């Protein structure tokens, strides 16, 4: 059941991504991208990451895409001339895209057993024995809840990157204000 929903959501995500890049209207493209991001949130839910699914909806669809739509409306980008490049560039782009896809789609052949085989360098251990940390994380998530299991490592192992993120966001706020203001 969960597998079927996952496949359906993935198909929706891929189709709306294709619509997003082929829509001539910038606002329609933004709305299709919102559909992609919402179905990705559903996929995260099925993959066992409910916290990431929640912040995907809050941050990506709620904040970043609203910012995009604000700017599109501020610049008044209506139905103008098509901004899609000519047939030559389009054909080249599709060839490059298909090449990237065939290269990356080799990843689709991975299952837990093969992943465990390659991570250990060719020993036939069962995946559960190789990926002990995931099992531990799952057990601690049962004990302290989904958010607790993420907050623990975030404020211990990953404390320095977390604090650096706050500096990055401060710099981004100041930079955005300086760039967007006419006169400072």
């Amino acid at each position: 059941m969960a597998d079927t929903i996952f496949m359906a959501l993935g198909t929706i995500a891929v189709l709306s991504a294709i619509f997003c890049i082929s829509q001539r209207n910038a606002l329609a493209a933004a709305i299709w991208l919102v559909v992609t991001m919402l179905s990705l949130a559903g996929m995260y839910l099925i993959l066992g990451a409910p916290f990431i699914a929640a912040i995907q909806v809050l941050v990506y669809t709620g904040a970043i895409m609203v910012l995009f739509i604000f700017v599109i409306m501020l610049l008044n980008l209506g139905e103008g001339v098509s901004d899609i490049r000519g047939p030559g560039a389009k054909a080249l782009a599709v060839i490059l895209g298909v090449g990237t896809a065939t290269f990356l789609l080799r990843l689709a052949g991975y299952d837990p057993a093969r992943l465990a085989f390659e991570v250990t360098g060719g020993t036939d251990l069962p995946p559960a024995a190789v990926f002990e940390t995931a099992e531990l994380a799952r057990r601690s998530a049962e004990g302290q809840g989904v958010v607790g299991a993420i907050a623990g490592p975030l404020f211990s192992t990953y404390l320095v990157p977390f604090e650096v993120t706050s500096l990055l966001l401060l710099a981004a706020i100041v930079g955005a204000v300086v760039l967007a203001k006419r006169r400072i």
Partner: protein
Amino acid sequence: MLLGPALAFSALLFSIGVVGVLIRRNAIVLFMCIELMLNAVNLTFVALAQYHGVGGQLMVFFVMAVAAAEAAVGLAIILAVFRHTTSVDLKTNTLLQG
């Protein structure tokens, strides 16, 4: 659990983002395609976090923070460029092309 399909979907989404960056000339749509590629990579992180533990999910958290910062600064730059040339079409904004 669902490792192969998740990686396949993320590969497809990433390639669609690449094609989008190459065929569009509108700077805002270009930015949206970059967000699409970031989302594809996030899907890979979450899929592999099932086996590697919670570190992959934390990486997604950081990617989202960086994407938010990038979107804010990038859109401010687009606004400034639009105010200067009254266009966000990359065909007309070729001052740095030499």
